[in-house]
């Protein structure tokens, strides 16, 4: 029994954190809100350079040969800086199925999926009637959908007229791809929540009202303590799900759903309290806060909303005999 990360896993996290701090500061997220494709100038290339985009690809096929347990902390870092890139879709979903060499990819798996950044990637992995297909972007008919998070360029994707599609997986691959997406999304939400907590704690220490820092008021302390508690009891579920996925544990889908529900709720709480503690300052779009909150509001129901995941757990633990 050992429930902790290796020094290598922590070192990878630290390296990604350091890189993202440079490549994706808040100003870069703000730029992505306004630019043509909603993405960063150089973070994708930097991630490519570090190899993490092909981390799940076997070494023999030119990847790093890592697994979800190695990548879950990287997902947290992606969330922490609100990286506007199809990281989960490419690295956790598509590349893990089709390997490297297809350029950048997005993915559509699970209930009611839309294609994020489908207009700026080279190919999209789609789930179609229990099969996984890889479709080149040129073959797709896209219709833009407007997300509350303007960096999330979302599209309904129609591949029925695409000529070049390759079948790359069956029912089990579909299920596993969805689980990896939901897990990666949960880890991203944890990172987003951690950032929201951190900046709110900082803000509450410096903002004065009634002659004292507002962070000295019990009402704020208790709200932020609750966020800290929610994170404390979301992370272990995320890490365990990553472990279960990495060893193909038979219960991995239930473990993913447990962490997906918990992480979404923790992030939602973090956004709620972050805004309330910031007050009107946080309600302005000149504050960076809104970009993190809107990412939470977008992702908290992506790849299955919390109730969908709870229902998946319910069917496993309540309805069996």
């Amino acid at each position, binding site marked *: 029994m050992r429930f902790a990360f290796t020094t290598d896993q922590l070192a990878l996290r630290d390296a990604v954190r350091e890189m993202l701090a440079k490549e994706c500061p808040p100003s870069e997220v703000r730029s992505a809100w306004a630019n043509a494709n909603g993405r960063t100038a150089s973070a994708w290339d930097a991630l490519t350079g570090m190899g993490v985009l092909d981390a799940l690809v076997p070494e023999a096929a030119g990847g790093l040969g890592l697994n979800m347990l190695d990548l879950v902390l990287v997902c947290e870092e992606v969330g922490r800086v609100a990286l506007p890139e199809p990281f989960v879709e490419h690295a956790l979903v598509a590349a893990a199925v089709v390997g490297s060499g297809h350029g950048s990819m997005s993915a559509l798996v699970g209930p009611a999926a839309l294609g994020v950044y489908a207009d700026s990637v080279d190919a999209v992995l789609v789930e179609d009637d229990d099969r996984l297909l890889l479709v080149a972007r040129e073959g797709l008919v896209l219709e833009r959908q*407007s997300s*509350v998070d303007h960096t999330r360029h979302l599209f309904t994707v129609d591949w029925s007229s695409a000529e070049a599609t390759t079948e790359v997986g069956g029912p089990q691959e579909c299920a596993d791809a969805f689980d990896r997406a939901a897990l990666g999304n949960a880890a991203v939400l944890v990172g987003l929540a951690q950032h929201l907590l951190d900046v709110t704690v900082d803000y509450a220490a410096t903002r004065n009202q009634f002659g004292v820092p*507002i962070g000295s008021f019990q009402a704020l302390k208790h709200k932020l303590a609750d966020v800290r508690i929610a994170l404390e009891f979301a992370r272990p579920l995320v890490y365990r799900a990553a472990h279960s996925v990495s060893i193909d544990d038979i219960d991995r889908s239930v473990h993913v759903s447990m962490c997906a529900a918990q992480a979404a709720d923790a992030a939602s709480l973090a956004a709620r309290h972050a805004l309330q503690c910031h007050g*009107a300052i946080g309600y302005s779009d000149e504050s960076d806060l809104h970009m993190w909150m809107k990412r939470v509001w977008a992702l908290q129901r*992506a790849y*299955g909303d919390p*109730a969908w995941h709870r229902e998946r757990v319910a069917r496993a633990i309540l309805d069996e005999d």
Partner: protein
Amino acid sequence: MVVGSLRRMDLSWSPTEVAFRNEARAWLAENVPSEKLPSGDTRDGFALHLKWEQRLFDARWSVVSWPEEYGGRNATLWEWLIFEEEYHRVGAPQRVTQNGIFLLAPTLFEFGTQEQRDRYLQPMASGLETWCQGWSEPDAGSDLAGIRSTAVRDDAAAGWRLSGQKTWTTRGAFCTHMFGLFRSDPAAERHAGLTYFLVPLNTPGVTVRGFGRLDGDEGFAEVFLDDVFVDDAMVLGEVNAGWKVAMATTGSERGLTLRSPGRFMATADRLVRLYRDIGARASDPALRHAVVQAVIDVEAYRLQTLATVTAIGDGDNPGATSSLTKVFWSELDVRMHDTALALLGTAAELEDNGWMKDFQFALSGPIYAGTNEVQRNVIAERVLGMPRR
């Protein structure tokens, strides 16, 4: 519910009130734009909304409870409630004049001079002059008594020179006038030594800069004042008694006037319709009862308002209980939008469903007009009598 009367409870509307409702409903059905206007918190939308306000005013629906001389109908509080119900029921446009009509006007009626009422009320009602609040400052948000903007007496000119910065001023970039508090006695502290001023925003020395809100609209503004001269006629209430005057305004804001039950009844109706459309497909079985609870809460809010209006009619003063109301409606509004988004599931993030944008507006409720943390302090200390720190 403490003042007695021999008249028994009666929850029916009189024939006069029913006729009033029918008249309002018919006019609104005829006149409310069939296309939803663009947000009134954008420059273009604001202008379109003012056209609507003018139309309301011309038909004397703008300020139904005001005296006829200012464009009203002398309507009773009950009729005013009925009008608001009908207004929200039909989904009529947001009132971009509300800070003037619902906040400043009651204060003018209570503290203003006859000259001030004659000068300001009718242009306010027609939307010719539009008012924004000038209370919050960068360092005075929840702590309104922390105001630093100053009013320096200019005896020679028989007026005052205002300097400082106001912020989070809703629709400030589009309005013509501002009302707000300024520190007129530099020696006094906190709630003392403040004076309530009316300020035309085209006065020399005023600079207004609009900025965006959470929901993306340019609904906020900063107002910078650099030695802005206003004469004595622009003081509302007594000099150095601004806090008392302002508290009457915030009481209006938190309590009855701004957020009438009609608004939340309309939201609950939309929520019920959403549930009927997609509730059966939602993944969360709890949403059925969440929708019911929203309806129950809105009904409780409506009934509590009826009790309050009855009590006002009996000569009672609701006082600090407006804090109870503010916390309740603001958090109810958030809950209703949470429920709607949960019903929408993965589609909730899409802006075309309308709920996501309204959700962001709902989140401002627990913040503005005094954060709910401050309101709960007020409830504990002034309603329950718990000890101050």
